[in-house]
Each structure stands twice: as structure tokens, then as C-alpha cells.
């Protein structure tokens, strides 16, 4: 399994008996990476069942609680099958198995999206820079790909290594995908284990994608001072031609930026992004702008800003072409995964394509050639700009008022709104000339436009909201920090000990999409609360944009107020979705750098270390996609708890611990081999909260770990108690369960806690060196009590 690296000979000129060759490169099979002196661990390149026993340990403690969205299975022609009341389908699967199968299906889809992105990135970079191009995360990062090292046992140092790692990932994804087929896996716990597996593979794929683009495209390399970027709709300059890039894959957009720069027109155009492409164009060129998260696509396009819309892959509104047509914005599809039904014009002359787009002969084109994309987009934008004059499709208020008077009051708009927004009441207010309620709905709107699909009068309700809130979004400008990439080894050296001991009470990772139940303010308030409490707060993806939109009294965003280092009280942005891997990587590096645990092919030990010692909590307040599901699955396998907002219940399965069952919280004491009961920490592995108040309390609670030192436990408890009293209004009744010795008691609330301990007949408990893996007991297989 270690023979993954091809040896290559490269020669500028080679004379042989049968000819003379120039610029040749020859592959001679595979050799071992034999200059890495770290010993290989027990599980390099694990297959689908290699880590099954670890998964089963977690899944026994954190038993899945299913909430099926459907009681039927309709995936094969045996069915539909009715799975109610204990019935099994024709294939033999029951509702529990089917529910677990859906979990695996979602994780597979999410992993595939990231992995295909990663494969495109690496193949493209090899084509451009050659297979031996060296990978780097920058100064201060020697462990440049901790997830890949941990999982595969390979230290990727070149693009060729990255490609070999992706070969492994693709094989694993094929296997986990196949397990979903009818007549394969039948056990809920093994569906779940496979979901964990593909989540782990997803983290590797994301890490490789970001490593490849950071190394080749000049992105910030582990830079805590990554540049601040202008964001928000009003940061766009209406005098300039405007190019909007939507999606996740930055490569096509780099050609646009390069062409604009090479032809000297950069000052005449604004290039802005939505969703993760926005982050990555800002990492490529800090002068680009960020419109906002995925949910702002429709409002921005309809407001007519974009002279050209460029789509790459993932998180694109699949009907973007229809909306762009209404405002005369040509659409350029650049990725084979989302060609939008557009004609492939790759082989056509640039000027012919531009002419057809500008004249409106075609509303959009698909182009595979990156260089051609750059030229077509820039030329089209410059020609479209004077022609369009920011043509929007927003109605006038007078027109809205007139139309609103014919509202049928059927409530279909409300019934279709994911967040039950009072759309109909707002329309009725507009009929009276009051547009404020519609503007208020805009503030909470996630931009799905289901309301207008449902409206029998075919009102463009989303446009109405945008128009009503025009005065608000015209002021919408804020600063966000571009993605810094990985966490430096040197930063880990500084914070590793205080995190493991609990003195830095936790690492909070706000990840992902913008399907918020109540607008984006919640994640800002949460981040500020925990940063004040000296947690390390990390952001990525769309959440990293939204958090910047809330400004303080001085007009500063959280990124301007707080440092971007990986340290207590900091708020940092690692970057786009694929940069999520750096968050897992930081936890892994803590085990390696601070605790000196070997990484190489040593997944179970490192996951066990993180689960028991690193108080990390992942949060995806607006989780929407299958990608968010696979990202979460990767964290679950590392033993890191994940909290989602209320819409996260639609993932249809929680992983819940039972604090009331002491037998569920047994660990091995690695020092003695004894079985020891610990407190329920982290209590859950996957949990959907109902609202921000519950999120505040749950976050603090899930940061508790068995290995906390007395000082660390006291600090964590003081935060938990304080937040519980603030948001639940009373002193929590389970504090005594977290006290092992009296030294764990936070000094300022000693009396209350001691009273509770007395009431519950508290007894001192040992503080073990905790592990869930018996073979990790020092000196062998345990043998203690």
C-alpha cells in the first residue's frame, strides 16, 4: 500500500541508439516514498471496512435517531415499497436501513462533488505546470497535508502525488456508492460506517483540491493577514462592466482575470463572485469583490448588475439562465457538470461567439477552453455594459402596488416558504402602499423563490422583496478577510497544549451554506460570543461571508475587529468549501505536533485522540447541501461533534448520546488498562438545534472532553453554566456529572456547584488517560479492571 509514487526521469535531450529525443519524461513504475522517516501506521489507504470497528464504537455511543422524510422506498422497480409499521421492502430493507441508506447516499453525492472538483483541479494543474510541480502551504507549514498523510500514508509533495491520492479516493467512492445499490448493504450501522468512510475520503479530496490551488495559483499561504476584501452589493461600481462568477471552481475565472490584466482592461471591469468561487477569486486577486453567499444569486442577477454571468460548478441555481435572460445577461457555462443546455462553442471563433452573445442571438454558451473563456467573457462584458446600462428586472413600486391589489390571499406563498415568512401579509401591505414588510421579508429571505413558483398570479415575489429593500441593499457594503488556507505548524505549537488541556475552551468551526432560519445575524452573534470567551472561531464557505455583513457601531466587520491567527479570541477564514479540510487538519496536527502521535496511516489513534482531547465543535447553521452532509461525516469519523441549524433536521438523522446511561460513557484508561466511566462529553455527535439560544448552550457543552485538565474543565464549565443561565434561565442541573475532583469546580460558582454535588451524592472520580481503543493502552491490551 505504500508503493504509490511513480518514479520519473526527465531529460531536456536524450540521445539513444534509435534516435535523439527532446523534453522527454519517462515513468518507471512505482517506488516507495522512502525519505519520510515517520513509520507507517496500521491503516494506510483504508478500504471501506478497515475502520469499521472504530465507526461502530462511535455509532454505539452515538446511536442514530432517524426521522424519515418518507416512509416509502421508490429506488427500484420492485417498489414502491411501504416501510411503515415494521414492514420490509421487496429487497428486505426496513425503514431503519433505508434511512441509513439515505444518509450514505447524501454523503456519497457530497463527496463526489468535491472529489470531481479536486480531480479537475489536479488534472488541470498537471497539464499546466507538470506532474512534478511542488505543493506547498507556505512558510511555517511542514505538515502540509495532514488529512492525506493520516488517511493514505502518503506525503503529497507534487501534483503527481496528489493525483495518486485522488486515485485512491475515487476507488473508495465507487465502493461506497455501490453499497447504496439495491441488494447490497442491509445493516443500518454499516450504511452509517460507510457514510463515515466517504466523509473521511471527502476530507482528503477537499484537502488535495485546496493544496493544488494554493500551491499553483498564488493564493495566501497559511496567512493570518490574508487581505481584506470588499463585499456586498453596493461595493460594485456601476460605471464598470461587471462579471459575475458563480460556483466553486476558480480555474475558469483565473483566465478571465488574467485576460483582463494582460489586455489592460482590469480597471474597466469589476469581477465579483457568489459562493465559493467568490472566495477563490479573492485569493487569486484581492481586488475582486464578493457579492455574498449562495442565496444572493437571484437578487443580484435580477437587480441587473451582471453584464455577464459565468458559472462553473456546484451551488448554481439551475435556472440561472432563465433569470439572466430577463436582464439580458449572457451566461457562460464553463464546466462539464453544469452545461445548462447551452450550445458548445469551444471550437468557434471568439469574435463570432461574442457577437452572438452581445446581439442576443444566443442567451449563453458552453465553452471548455479556459483561454477562450477568458477572452469571450471579458470582451462580452465590455460590449454588453453600455448596451445594458444595468438593466434590471425589478418592478416599480407603483406596478407592485397595482398588482398586489389583485392578490388572491390563497397563502400559497407562505405555505411554500421554507421559513414560513409572512409573504402574503407583506403583499397585502404593499397593496396599501406600505413596502416595509416586504423589505423585512428580504432581510430573512434565503432566495429560493419558491413563493413565486407557487403564486397563482405569477407575481415575481422575490423581485418585489428586492425592490422593496432597495434602500437597504444599496447600503450593503462590508469587509471580509480572504481565505488564509491552512493553519501553520507554529500556530499549533502555541495553542496545542492549551486546547488539549482545555484552557482554550474550544475551537468553533462555522462551516457552509446559507440556509438560515432567521437571516445571517445569528452566526455573527454566536461567533462574537465565543470569540469573547477566548474560543478560536474558524469560518469557511458562505458562512464566512455572511458573518462579515454585520457591522459594529464603527462600521467594522468581525474580521476587522479580530485577528486572523489561530489563537484564542481570533476569528479566521480558511477559505472556500474545500478549505474545510484545514479545520480537520488543524485538529490532526494538534495530535501530531503537540502530542507527538504519528500521523502516517494512523487514523484510528488520531481520531481517538481528537475525540477525547480536542474540544472542537463544527457548526453549520445554514447547512443545505449533500456536500455539507459529507463534510459533517468526515468530522464524525474524527469524533468531532457537529451542530446544524433547525433546517438540518432535514438530514433526517441525528447521532445522539445518552447522558443518562453511564454504561455508554466507558473508556479505557491508557495508563492502567482500567475501564473508567467518564462524563458525557461530547454528549452528541450530530445535533440540530431549534434556535440560536439552544445553539449557544449546546456549543459550550459539546466542547467538554474527558481529557480536560482540572483548570480546563473549570473554564469550560464556567462558560457552559453562564450560557445556560443566560439562555435557559437557570443553573444547569447536570454540572455535578462533569466534576471529577473538587479542583474541577469553577471557583466563582463554587457554592452552587457544591450544593448540587451534595444533593446528588457526588463522589470523586478518576481522571483517566482516555481512549476508546483497547490496543492503545500502554503496554498492550489493557488487562486492568
Amino acid at each position, binding site marked *: 500500500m505504500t508503493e504509490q509514487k511513480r518514479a520519473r526521469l526527465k531529460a531536456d535531450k536524450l540521445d539513444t541508439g534509435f534516435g535523439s529525443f527532446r523534453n522527454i519524461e519517462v515513468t518507471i513504475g512505482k517506488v516507495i516514498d522512502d525519505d519520510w522517516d515517520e513509520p507507517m501506521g496500521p491503516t494506510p489507504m483504508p478500504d471501506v471496512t478497515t475502520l469499521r470497528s472504530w465507526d461502530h464504537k462511535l455509532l454505539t455511543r452515538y446511536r442514530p435517531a432517524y426521522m424519515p422524510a418518507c416512509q416509502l422506498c421508490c429506488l427500484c422497480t420492485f417498489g414502491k415499497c411501504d416501510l411503515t409499521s415494521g414492514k420490509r421492502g421487496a429487497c428486505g430493507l426496513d425503514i431503519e436501513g433505508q434511512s441509513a441508506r439515505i444518509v450514505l447516499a447524501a454523503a456519497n453525492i457530497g463527496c463526489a462533488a468535491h472529489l470531481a472538483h479536486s480531480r479537475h483541479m489536479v488534472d488541470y494543474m498537471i497539464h499546466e505546470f507538470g506532474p512534478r510541480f511542488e505543493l506547498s502551504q507556505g512558510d511555517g507549514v511542514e505538515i502540509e497535508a495532514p488529512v492525506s498523510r493520516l488517511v493514505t500514508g502518503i506525503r503529497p509533495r507534487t501534483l503527481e502525488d496528489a493525483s495518486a491520492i485522488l486515485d485512491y479516493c475515487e476507488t473508495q467512492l465507487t465502493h461506497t456508492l455501490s453499497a447504496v445499490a439495491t441488494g447490497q448493504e442491509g445493516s443500518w450501522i454499516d450504511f452509517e460506517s460507510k457514510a463515515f468512510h466517504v466523509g473521511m475520503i471527502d476530507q482528503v479530496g477537499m484537502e488535495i483540491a485546496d493544496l493544488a490551488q494554493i500551491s499553483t495559483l498564488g493564493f495566501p499561504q497559511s496567512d493570518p493577514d490574508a487581505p481584506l476584501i470588499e463585499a456586498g452589493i453596493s461595493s460594485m461600481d456601476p460605471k464598470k462592466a461587471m462579471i459575475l462568477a458563480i460556483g466553486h471552481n476558480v480555474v475558469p475565472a483565473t483566465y478571465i482575470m488574467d485576460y483582463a490584466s494582460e489586455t489592460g482592461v482590469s480597471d474597466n471591469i469589476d469581477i465579483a463572485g457568489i459562493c465559493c468561487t467568490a472566495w477563490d477569486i479573492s485569493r487569486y486577486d484581492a481586488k475582486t469583490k464578493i457579492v455574498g453567499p449562495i442565496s444572493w444569486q437571484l437578487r443580484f442577477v435580477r437587480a441587473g448588475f451582471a453584464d455577464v454571468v459565468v458559472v462553473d460548478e456546484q451551488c448554481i441555481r439551475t435556472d440561472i439562465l432563465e433569470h439572466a435572460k430577463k436582464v439580458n445577461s449572457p451566461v457562460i457555462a464553463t464546466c462539464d457538470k453544469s452545461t445548462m443546455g447551452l450550445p458548445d462553442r469551444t471550437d468557434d471563433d471568439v469574435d463570432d461567439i461574442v457577437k452572438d452573445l452581445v446581439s442576443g442571438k444566443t442567451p449563453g454558451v458552453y465553452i471548455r477552453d479556459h483561454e477562450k473563456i477568458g477572452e469571450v467573457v471579458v470582451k462580452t462584458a465590455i460590449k454588453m455594459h453600455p448596451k445594458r446600462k444595468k438593466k434590471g428586472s425589478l418592478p416599480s413600486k407603483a406596478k407592485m402596488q397595482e398588482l398586489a391589489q389583485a392578490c388572491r390571499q390563497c397563502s400559497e406563498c407562505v405555505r411554500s416558504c421554507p421559513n*414560513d415568512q409572512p409573504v402574503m401579509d407583506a403583499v397585502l401591505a404593499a397593496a396599501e402602499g406600505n413596502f416595509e414588510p416586504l423589505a423585512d421579508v428580504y432581510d430573512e429571505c434565503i432566495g429560493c423563490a419558491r413563493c413565486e413558483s407557487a403564486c397563482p398570479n405569477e407575481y415575481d415575489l422575490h423581485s418585489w422583496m428586492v425592490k422593496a429593500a432597495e434602500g437597504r441593499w444599496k447600503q450593503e457594503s462590508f469587509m471580509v478577510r480572504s481565505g488564509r488556507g491552512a493553519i501553520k505548524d507554529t500556530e499549533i505549537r502555541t495553542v496545542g497544549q492549551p486546547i488539549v488541556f482545555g484552557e482554550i475552551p474550544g475551537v468553533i468551526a462555522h462551516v457552509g451554506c446559507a440556509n438560515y432560519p432567521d437571516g445571517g445575524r445569528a452566526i455573527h452573534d454566536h461567533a462574537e460570543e465565543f470569540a469573547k470567551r477566548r474560543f478560536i472561531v474558524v469560518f469557511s464557505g458562505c458562512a464566512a461571508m455572511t458573518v462579515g455583513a454585520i457591522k459594529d457601531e464603527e462600521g467594522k466587520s468581525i474580521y476587522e475587529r479580530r485577528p486572523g491567527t489561530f489563537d484564542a479570541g481570533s476569528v479566521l477564514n480558511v477559505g472556500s468549501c474545500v478549505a474545510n479540510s484545514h479545520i480537520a487538519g488543524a485538529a490532526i496536527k494538534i495530535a501530531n505536533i503537540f502530542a507527538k502521535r504519528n500521523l502516517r496511516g494512523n487514523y484510528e489513534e488520531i481520531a481517538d485522540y481528537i475525540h477525547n482531547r480536542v474540544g472542537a465543535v463544527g457548526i453549520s447553521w445554514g447547512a443545505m447541501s449533500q456536500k455539507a452532509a459529507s463534510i459533517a461525516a468526515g468530522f464524525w469519523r474524527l469524533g468531532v461533534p457537529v451542530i446544524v441549524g433547525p433546517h438540518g433536521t432535514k438530514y433526517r438523522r441525528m447521532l445522539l448520546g445518552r447522558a443518562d446511561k453511564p454504561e455508554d460513557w466507558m473508556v479505557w484508561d491508557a495508563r492502567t488498562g482500567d475501564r473508567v466511566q467518564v462524563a458525557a462529553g461530547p454528549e452528541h455527535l450530530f445535533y440540530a438545534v431549534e434556535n440560536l439560544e439552544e445553539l449557544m448552550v449546546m456549543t459550550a457543552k459539546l466542547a467538554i472532553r474527558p481529557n480536560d485538565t482540572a483548570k480546563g474543565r473549570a473554564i469550560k464549565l464556567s462558560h457552559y453554566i453562564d450560557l445556560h443561565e443566560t439562555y435557559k434561565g437557570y443553573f444547569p442541573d447536570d454540572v455535578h456529572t462533569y466534576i471529577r475532583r473538587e479542583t474541577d469546580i469553577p471557583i466563582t460558582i463554587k457554592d452552587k456547584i457544591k450544593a448540587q454535588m451534595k444533593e446528588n451524592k457526588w463522589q470523586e472520580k478518576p481522571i483517566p488517560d482516555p481512549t476508546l481503543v483497547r490496543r492503545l493502552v500502554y503496554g498492550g491490551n489493557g488487562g486492568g479492571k
Partner: protein
Amino acid sequence: MMREEPWQTAEVCGPTKAQGIKKPAVVGALLKKAKHPLLVVGSQALTENTGKKSMIDYFIEFSTAAKIPIVATANTITAFKEKGFDNAYSYGAMEITGRLQDHDWMVASKKGPHDLVMTYGFPYYMEWLMLSALINFSPHIKTVSLGRYYQPHATWSFPNLKKQNWNDALKEILTLSGGSK
């Protein structure tokens, strides 16, 4: 609008769907029959009311009259504590959904199981899924959704009701349970 169809239009379920509560007496009969009923109250109770009564006051009265414990999810517990009500227990919505699947579990460490669970106060889609968990994995429990909108995964649910009709129904349930009008 007395229709037994999902309030959020896409939230259709499988072969079984809730029976509509056409008369509040149905709830009275279920209460009479239940040995260990439970009220699960979500955070929307903090801001909603029925008639002139806050939902928190309503449930305190209901719980007291019918001697039913309350599980208050998220921060809902604050309102019960502030009013000095001591038969409310704090669990997360997902926690209580998980616990109720355990046949041996009952709130306040008493011997279980609960056999009747009445829910109120959650985002529609969230309650929909909580009730799905119970209908599929807690066959020993009958569920009643007390909200204004039809919840197909409950055993019993109001159809989509106008506010006044719903107020009247809740008032009658309170009377049937021995509480004031």
C-alpha cells in the same frame, strides 16, 4: 380552510397520515385513556398566544389540570421557570425525540413509557420530522399535534385551521382536561 393537508405544501408523507381532530373531545378521550401523557412544547410558544392567553400560560394551565409533565425545548424552559412552574423539564427537541424512542424512558426518571405525546411550538418542518421519528420508531406512543396546521406524521392532528377555530378548540381541550375556560 379545514383541510387535512400539509401546511408546507411539499411535506407529504407515506401511506399513513394523521387522523384529523374534528372535535376536541377526541383529545379528551385520548387523555383519559393515556397512562403517561407528555406535553412537548417548543420555542414558538414563547411568542404565540391563544386568544388573550400566552401559550405558556395555556400549557401551565393544561399541565396542571391534566397532571401532565411538560418538556420545554431550547430556551422555552425560561418562561416556565419565570412563572414558577415546576413540572417542566428541559430537553432539546432532538434529545426528546430520541429519548421517546426508548420504551424504558420517561421524563423525571419515572418508569415509562410515555404513551401519549402532545406537541406544539416548533418550526413546521421540524415538528414534521420529530413526529416522523415517533410514528416510525415509537409504536407504543400516540401523538397529537396541537398546532394550527395539519401535521401528517402525527397520529392525530388538527386540520389547517383559522385562528379563531383553533382558539376555540384549544379552549375546549382545556375544559375537558379540567382546566378553566
